[in-house]
């Protein structure tokens, strides 16, 4: 099977002269069709830079990106743009406060010419319905929605563009746990129903454990470990991964035990 997205030795540096910052160094990984790959790391790990390169916000300094078996240029065609979409962390800022929710969702349809202009409002409403929002939310301003509802709108915006790969940049970390659980479930259901692939960027390992197929751990711009989710949690190879898991605040006894065993293994 050809991967949907491949990164081959991708690096990114910022600045010039004495002030070079290497944000991403020599990173390679694949995302298969229908797969959810979690990208885990703390601040300064380069995960946002990575996301921006995948989305074509800026180009890589070296290396190659491939999409669906073909090289992905920095200047994206509309086809590429519609196929790769984004859901951001803060739904409060990712929706324009001065435009209706519907207008924000519709933007992609207009840009890509999806549907005829007269059909687009009903496509927007269909997308809203798909994420569990009433059709008449289309006319509301973002301020009239709760945090969870806004995040659903952001997801609807990505769906409406008929995307195949969605970059989820900390999509639930600004939400309360009860809302987070519902949004995560929605994301899972949509992935299964539509065969979507996710690049799920997060710092929350307990979320990763339950949504990702594979996990890529980043530290200071480098990929330190990439493996199946189960393997990462039960048998992490890198100390840094172990540290990350050890720092997760947990609620049940079993989890504490898991953490303790990881910690003792790490010492031996």
């Amino acid at each position, binding site marked *: 099977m050809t991967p949907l997205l491949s990164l081959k030795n991708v690096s990114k540096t910022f600045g010039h002269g004495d002030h070079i910052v290497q944000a991403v160094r020599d990173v390679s990984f694949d995302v298969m069709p229908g797969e959810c790959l979690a990208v885990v790391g703390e601040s300064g790990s380069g995960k946002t830079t990575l996301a921006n390169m995948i989305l074509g916000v800026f180009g890589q300094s070296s290396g190659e990106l491939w999409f669906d078996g073909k090289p992905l240029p920095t200047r994206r065609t509309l086809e590429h743009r519609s196929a790769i979409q984004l859901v951001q962390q803060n739904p409060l800022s990712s929706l324009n406060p001065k*435009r209706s929710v519907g207008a924000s969702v519709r933007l992609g349809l207009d840009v890509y010419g999806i549907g005829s202009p007269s059909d687009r409002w009903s496509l927007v409403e269909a997308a809203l319905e798909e994420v569990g929002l009433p059709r008449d939310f289309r006319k509301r301003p973002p301020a009239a929605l709760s945090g969870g509802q806004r995040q659903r709108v952001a997801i609807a915006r990505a769906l409406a563009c008929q995307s195949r790969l969605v970059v989820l940049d900390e999509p639930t970390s600004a939400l309360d746990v009860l809302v987070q659980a519902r949004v995560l479930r929605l994301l899972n259901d949509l992935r299964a129903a539509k065969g979507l692939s996710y690049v799920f960027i997060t710092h929350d390992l307990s979320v990763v454990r339950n949504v990702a197929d594979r996990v890529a751990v980043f530290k200071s711009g480098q990929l330190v470990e990439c493996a199946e989710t189960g393997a990462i949690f039960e048998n992490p190879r890198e100390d840094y991964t172990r540290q990350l898991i050890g720092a997760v605040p947990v609620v049940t006894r079993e989890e504490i035990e898991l953490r303790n065993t990881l910690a003792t293994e790490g010492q031996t």
Partner: protein
Amino acid sequence: MKRTLVILLRNPLSLIGVILVALVVLSAIFADFIAPFPEHRGSVVDFVNFNKAPNATNIMGTDLVGRDLFSRIIYAFRISLVLGVVVLAIATPIGTLVGLFAGYVGGKTEFILMRLTDVFLSIPPLVLAIAMMGVLEPTLMNAMLAVTAMWWPWYARLVYNIARSEREEGYVLAAEVIGASTPHIALREILPNCLPAILTKMTLDMGFVIIIASSLSFLGLGVQPPTPDLGSMVAEGARYLPDSWWLTVFPGLAILIAVFGFNLVGDALREILGADQ
């Protein structure tokens, strides 16, 4: 919109502002019906009644050629308001576009546009207008031109600052990722978020344009006699202080009242629309 109006009318200070603005605007529009001596806006001479202190017929007194001061002040409002509206109607769109694109596009566009703006901002506002009026003929038309030339950079700067901070907002990134065009992002996404601040500044600026225009004519570089203008009326009367105090005090107070009204409303708008800088 409705909410804005309700809050505006509920607060005593902004209510006073609304009333003052309404008084000035209405008297300017209906000057022909309100002014006791409409013909005094021109070069009428009535030496029998010249230089009279305020009295029952001429509630603000008469000037040196016997014209009713109250009538002339009302007509002067008309000139000031027309000037303010025209200046802002031209300066605001120019400044907004410059600031919007400089702030959103960044890079070379930003450097060139903002240095150009800096050039205009580096000449104290009044001095630029004075200099322009110096080389041009002092007419109403040229006064508007001069004031407009010094006004647009302030909007460029205001909108530039907002656009630069809005550029960092998630919704701009979202639109960029989708692939929306630069004009779309600048005009449809960012501009609506600048509007409250622009609207507030326009209200406050109505007052400032009145100040600048009257300053020009105070120096003899603006609207020329016999057209009634508050600035030239003060200038004319200043030579007859303190005996004919009404010649300066009433036109001076008229400026104060008009500008104060616009400022009160502008301040209230700023608070309601949350448009701080």
